[in-house]
């Protein structure tokens, strides 16, 4: 079989070789780089979406955290105000109760005093009567014989009257 010379230029062969390289280029492009690029792109997309999701979740979590912290702060304040209010209320109520009690006590005392006064007056009257009676009896016994009854009575009465007026 024939061989070519070591250096022999053949245009057709050059053309074929050029087309061969182009063909291999197309093969590489479509069967090697394209699938790999697709896969890499898909992976990148997946990663991106995952990162985006993570960021979103983080943002939501942060928001929640802030909201809760704020709520906690306000809760403290609220508790304080509630306590304050309660204390005030209690104080007010206590004062009121004490006042009422005082008033009641005063009125009770007044009533009691009035009653006592009445009682005293009654007792005075009673005593007066008794004294009158007793003195009457006494005087009767003492002066039974000497003075007549009516004069005697009048004198005693006047005396007692004097005493009572002076006493009163």
């Amino acid at each position, binding site marked *: *079989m*024939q*061989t*070519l*010379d*070591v*250096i*022999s*230029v*053949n*245009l*057709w*062969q*050059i*053309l*074929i*070789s*050029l*087309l*061969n*390289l*182009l*063909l*291999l*280029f197309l*093969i*590489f*492009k479509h*069967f*090697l*780089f394209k*699938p*790999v*690029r697709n*896969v*890499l792109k*898909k*992976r990148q997309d*997946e990663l991106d979406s995952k990162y985006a999701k993570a960021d979103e979740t983080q943002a939501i979590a942060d928001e929640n955290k802030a909201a809760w912290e704020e709520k906690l702060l306000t809760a403290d304040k609220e508790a304080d105000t509630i306590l304050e209010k309660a204390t005030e209320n209690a104080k007010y109520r206590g004062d009121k109760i004490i006042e009422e009690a005082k008033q009641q006590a005063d009125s009770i005392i007044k009533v009691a005093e009035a009653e006592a006064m009445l009682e005293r007056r009654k007792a005075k009257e009673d005593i007066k009567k008794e004294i009158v009676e007793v003195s009457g009896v006494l005087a009767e016994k003492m002066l039974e014989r000497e003075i007549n009854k009516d004069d005697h009575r009048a004198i005693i009465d006047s005396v007692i009257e004097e005493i009572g007026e002076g006493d009163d």
Partner: protein
Amino acid sequence: MKTKSRLFVALDVLLIIMMILPLAVAIGIKVLITPPSEGINIAGARIIYTFDNMPIQPLVITESQVNSWLIIISIFSLCLYFTHGIKVKADTKRQHALEWIVEKCDGLVGQNMGEYFAAFSPFIASIIALSAFSSLMCLFGLFPPTSDINIVGGWALLVFILITYYKLKCGPWHYIKGFAEPIVILAPMNLISEIATPVSMAFRHYGNVLSGTVISVLVTTGLQGLSNILLGWLPGFLGEFPFLQIGIPAVLSAYFDVFSSCLQAYIFAMLTMMYVSGAFPAEDYFKRKEKKKNKKITTKEKLEVI
């Protein structure tokens, strides 16, 4: 781990066979068409078929063409094998290797050519693969297509077309003006250097591979002679056996066939990247684009005014 389906494995095996089969076919063809050795034989590719009725020159189909095609089939199968069962969630070594290759390639192209030429990475990959595999064919005792000037010439021609295409991006006037730089007198020199680019690329690659083969053959033959002189006094069969041919040519082969093949592929790819990206007047191009855009806008405004 999930076991792969039977069909998947069968396809894998088929693709691997498709990778190896072209090599076997090439070796078969080589054995069929090579006449018994007649000593030192340094020649071009063997002609397999000739189409005589073509214009300009007869179209000859030689070993280098056939081997190129076989390599392309082999690489095609390799691509299919690599991308077979590719997933978003990579869990096979195959896919990791594939992604590594693609990323390295993108990185190389991005580093040497810049963002604008990102689409070049399959082209550069195909140059490296075709060149390296073609040169490495000689490891199997086959004719390496890269030691044929026509093959490498075709590639260089394609690179030249690309260079010219990118130089013409700024319009023909810009291209012609480029030859008159830095002064008009140097125009012929520039023209020569322009044409010399693909020629030098082709000759560099072809010369390296061919010279490796030539030196290997020469050294091997020389060693046979040396062996005869030094060890010829040994009795009988021992005296005829070329002992010095054991091992020493293998070292040369390691350099010329393996190292040089990969290196030349890399160099060819690097030069392609340099020349093509260097040919593209990026600044002028973007300025021009901007101008065109502005013009369009102004004409639009004018139309609106009217």
